C-alpha cells in the first residue's frame, strides 16, 4: 500500500502540484508552528505509522491514553466548566462564586491575591497596594469561612491556585469543611501546589527548592491517607507557556517537573501507586488548533510511558494524565477586545478536542483588567455552546487518525522527550531551574515570537494588522484602595479577638515540626484552627527554611 502512495504522490507532485506552484506559489516559503515543526503541504499515511495503532493510540481509558483518560469521554459526562475567579475581599468573591454556580458553572476555582500567594498578611508593608487586586485576600480561617459561606463543600469541587503556601490554604479548606459537617475524605478539588514552575515561570515562590519539595511530599502523604478524592498537585504548563515557551516546551518542562515530584515522593518513602493517581496537570490552549490538540494527546501518551517505564507504576490510574486547561491569556489583545471571544472559541475547541477534564475560558477584557461579570458570562457561554451545540462531544477523540494530527502528536512527543533527556543529563528539573536553563529556553522562545510579530511574520489581528483607532474601553473592573483598608481593619479586629496563648502554642509546635522530619500537615491544620494567620504561619516556616533567591538570566 505504501508503495502505491509513494508512486501516486510523485505523480501528483509532477503533474498537478508543480503547475499550481509555478503559477501561484504559496503564501510563505516555509510553514512552521510554534514548536518549530516544519509543516508539510499535505499529510498522508506515510507520515504516521498506522501499523502501531494499538501501541500508539489504543482505546480511550486504556494505556497509553492517547485517545483520552475515560472510555466514554464527553459522551458520559462533559468536562467541568470552572472559571478561575476571585477578587477584593472574601465577601465579594463569595458573591461572584454564587453567581457563577447559578449560571451553570460546575466547580469553583479560586484566585488569591499576591500577598496571599506569597504568604504575607494584608497588613504587611510589602502587601501595600496589592491587597485584593488579582484575587481574593485570605489572611486567616476567618476569611475562608466567609469565602465559602453558603457553598456546600460536599457538593462542589474547588480548585485553588496556591503554591508556596498550599499546605496552609488546604488546611483552612479542611477546617471550613469540618465546620460545615463535611469530613475531609469527602472533599473534591485541587490545589496547584506546583512550586517548580513558580521558580521557572510564575514567580510566587517563598522557600528554597528542597524545603518546598518537602512541603509538597508532606501533602502527598497526608492526602493519600485522608483525602482520597483530592488532587494534591496540578503540575502546570500553563504559566510556562504564558511566559513564552512553545507548545512542545510546555509539555517537556511540565512533565520534567512532574518527574521531579514523583522522584521526591518516592525518595521520601511513598509508594508510587499510593500517590500518583492524585497527580493532575494544567495546560494552556493557544490558537494553533491542531498543534494544541496534538500537544494534549502527546502529553498523555508520554506521561503514561514515563509512569510505566521509568517509575514502574502498576495502577492504570497512576499512568493517566488528567488535566485542566485554561485558554491562553497571552494570546488576548488589548486592541479590539471583542475579537478575543473568537480566539477563546478556537482555544476551547482545542482543549475539548484534546480531551481536557476541566476548562477555564478567559474573558475578552482580560488583557486590560480583571473581567467584569458580563464578560465572564460570555466566556462561560462559549464553553456551553461548544458543549451543547458544536457536536464535537458526541464521539471520543474525533481527530484521531488524521494524518496531520497523528504526525504532530508524534513530533511533539519526540521533541518533549529530547528535552526531558537533556534535563535528566543536567541532573533533573530542580537543577535545570536552579541553573537557569529552563528559564533561558523559555525566554528565547518568547523573544523569537515577539520578533516574528514585529516583523509581521506572525500576524496578530488588531495588533500588527487590521488595526483601528479606538476609544479607551469603558466599564473595566477596578479594585480600589478601600478594599485594602477594609481587609486590614478586619484582620486587626480579628487578631484581637483570638486566644493568643493558643496561637503561640500552635506556632511553636509548627516550628518544632518544621525543624524535625515530621509531616507538617497536622500542625498546620492545628495552627489554622486556632486562627493563626497565613503570614504568621509562613513567617515561622521562613525562619526555619529560609527564602529562595532567584537567578536572573536575560
Amino acid at each position, binding site marked *: 500500500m505504501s508503495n502505491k502512495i509513494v508512486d501516486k504522490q510523485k505523480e501528483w507532485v509532477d503533474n498537478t502540484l508543480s503547475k499550481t506552484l509555478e503559477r501561484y506559489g504559496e503564501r510563505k516559503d516555509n510553514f512552521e508552528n510554534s514548536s518549530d515543526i516544519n509543516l508539510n503541504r499535505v499529510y498522508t499515511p506515510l507520515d504516521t505509522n498506522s501499523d502501531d495503532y494499538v501501541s500508539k493510540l489504543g482505546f480511550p481509558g486504556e494505556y497509553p491514553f492517547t485517545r483520552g483518560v475515560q472510555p466514554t469521554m464527553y459522551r458520559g459526562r462533559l468536562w467541568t466548566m470552572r472559571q478561575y475567579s476571585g477578587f477584593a475581599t472574601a465577601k465579594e468573591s463569595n458573591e461572584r462564586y454564587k453567581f457563577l454556580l447559578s449560571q451553570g458553572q460546575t466547580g469553583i476555582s479560586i484566585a488569591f491575591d499576591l500577598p496571599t500567594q506569597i504568604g504575607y498578611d494584608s497588613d504587611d508593608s*510589602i502587601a501595600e*497596594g*496589592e491587597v485584593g487586586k488579582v484575587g481574593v485576600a485570605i489572611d486567616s480561617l476567618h476569611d475562608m469561612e466567609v469565602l465559602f459561606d453558603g457553598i456546600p463543600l460536599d457538593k462542589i469541587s474547588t480548585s485553588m491556585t496556591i503554591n508556596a503556601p498550599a499546605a496552609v490554604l488546604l488546611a483552612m479548606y479542611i477546617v471550613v469543611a469540618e465546620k460545615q459537617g463535611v469530613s475531609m475524605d469527602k472533599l473534591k478539588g485541587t490545589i496547584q501546589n506546583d512550586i517548580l514552575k513558580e521558580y521557572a515561570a510564575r*514567580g510566587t515562590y517563598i522557600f528554597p527548592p528542597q524545603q518546598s519539595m518537602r512541603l509538597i511530599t508532606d501533602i502527598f502523604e497526608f492526602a493519600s491517607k485522608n483525602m482520597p478524592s483530592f488532587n494534591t498537585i496540578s503540575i502546570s504548563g500553563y504559566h510556562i507557556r504564558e511566559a513564552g515557551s512553545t507548545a512542545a516546551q510546555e509539555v517537556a518542562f511540565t512533565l520534567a517537573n512532574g518527574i521531579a515530584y514523583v522522584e521526591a515522593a518516592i525518595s521520601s518513602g511513598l509508594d508510587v501507586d499510593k500517590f500518583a493517581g492524585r497527580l493532575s496537570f494544567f495546560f494552556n490552549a493557544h490558537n494553533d488548533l491542531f498543534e494544541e490538540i496534538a500537544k494534549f494527546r502527546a502529553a498523555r501518551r508520554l506521561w503514561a510511558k514515563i509512569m510505566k517505564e521509568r517509575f514502574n507504576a502498576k495502577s492504570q490510574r497512576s499512568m493517566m494524565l488528567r488535566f485542566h486547561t485554561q485558554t491562553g491569556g497571552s494570546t488576548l489583545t*488589548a486592541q479590539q477586545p471583542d475579537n478575543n471571544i473568537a480566539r477563546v472559541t478556537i482555544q476551547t475547541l482545542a482543549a475539548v478536542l484534546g480531551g481536557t477534564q476541566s476548562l477555564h475560558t478567559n474573558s475578552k477584557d482580560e488583557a486590560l483588567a480583571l473581567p467584569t461579570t458580563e464578560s465572564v458570562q460570555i466566556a462561560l457561554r462559549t464553553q456551553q455552546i461548544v458543549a451543547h451545540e458544536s457536536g464535537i462531544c458526541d464521539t471520543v477523540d474525533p481527530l484521531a487518525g488524521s494524518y496531520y494530527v497523528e504526525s504532530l502528536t508524534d513530533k511533539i512527543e519526540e521533541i518533549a522527550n529530547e528535552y526531558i533527556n537533556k534535563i535528566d543529563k543536567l541532573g533533573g528539573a530542580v537543577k535545570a531551574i536552579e541553573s537557569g536553563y529552563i528559564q533561558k529556553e523559555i*525566554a528565547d522562545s*518568547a523573544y523569537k515570537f515577539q520578533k516574528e510579530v514585529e516583523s509581521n511574520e506572525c500576524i*496578530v489581528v488588531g495588533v500588527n494588522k487590521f488595526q483601528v483607532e479606538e476609544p*479607551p474601553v469603558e466599564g473595566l473592573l477596578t479594585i480600589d*484602595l478601600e478594599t485594602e483598608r477594609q481587609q486590614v481593619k478586619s484582620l486587626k479586629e480579628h487578631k484581637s479577638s483570638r486566644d493568643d496563648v493558643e496561637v503561640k502554642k500552635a506556632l511553636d509546635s509548627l516550628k518544632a515540626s518544621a525543624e524535625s522530619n515530621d509531616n507538617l500537615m497536622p500542625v498546620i491544620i492545628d495552627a489554622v484552627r486556632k486562627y493563626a494567620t497565613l503570614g504568621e504561619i509562613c513567617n515561622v516556616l521562613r525562619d526555619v527554611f529560609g527564602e529562595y533567591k532567584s537567578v536572573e538570566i536575560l
Partner: protein
Amino acid sequence: MTDRKIRVLIAKPGLDGHDRGAKIIARSLRDAGMEVIYTGLRRTPEQIVNAAIQEDVDVVAVSILSGAHNHLLPKISNLLKENGADDILVTAGGVIPEKDFKHLEENGVQGIFTPGTPTSEVVDFIKSHVEH
C-alpha cells in the same frame, strides 16, 4: 559623554511574577545598543531607586502587571526626586488602564507602554528622551 551607552534599569516592583515583558524589553534594549540591568522580581521602590542610583542609570523602565501601579510608580518617582535623581527617566509597561495614565504622568512617569506595543517604540522613546 558622547560614547557612553544609555544605561537602563529594568525594574519589577510589586509582587507579580510576570516578567516575560520585562525580559523581552531587556533584550530589545540591549540589541539596540543599551546597557541593561534587570532587578529581578518583587523589588520595593526603595530597592529600585537605590539600584538606579548605584548603577548610574539614565532610565528606570518599570514593568508591572499586578494592578498596584498607581501605588508603586509614584513612590519610585518621588524617591528619585528625594534623592536628587529626578533626571532619571521613568517609563512603565504592563497592564495599565488608560484612565490611570494622567495620574501616573502627573507623578513623574514619562512613557507608558501597554500590551501590544512594538519594542521599537520603546527603544525610540528612550533614545529621544535621553540625551547624550
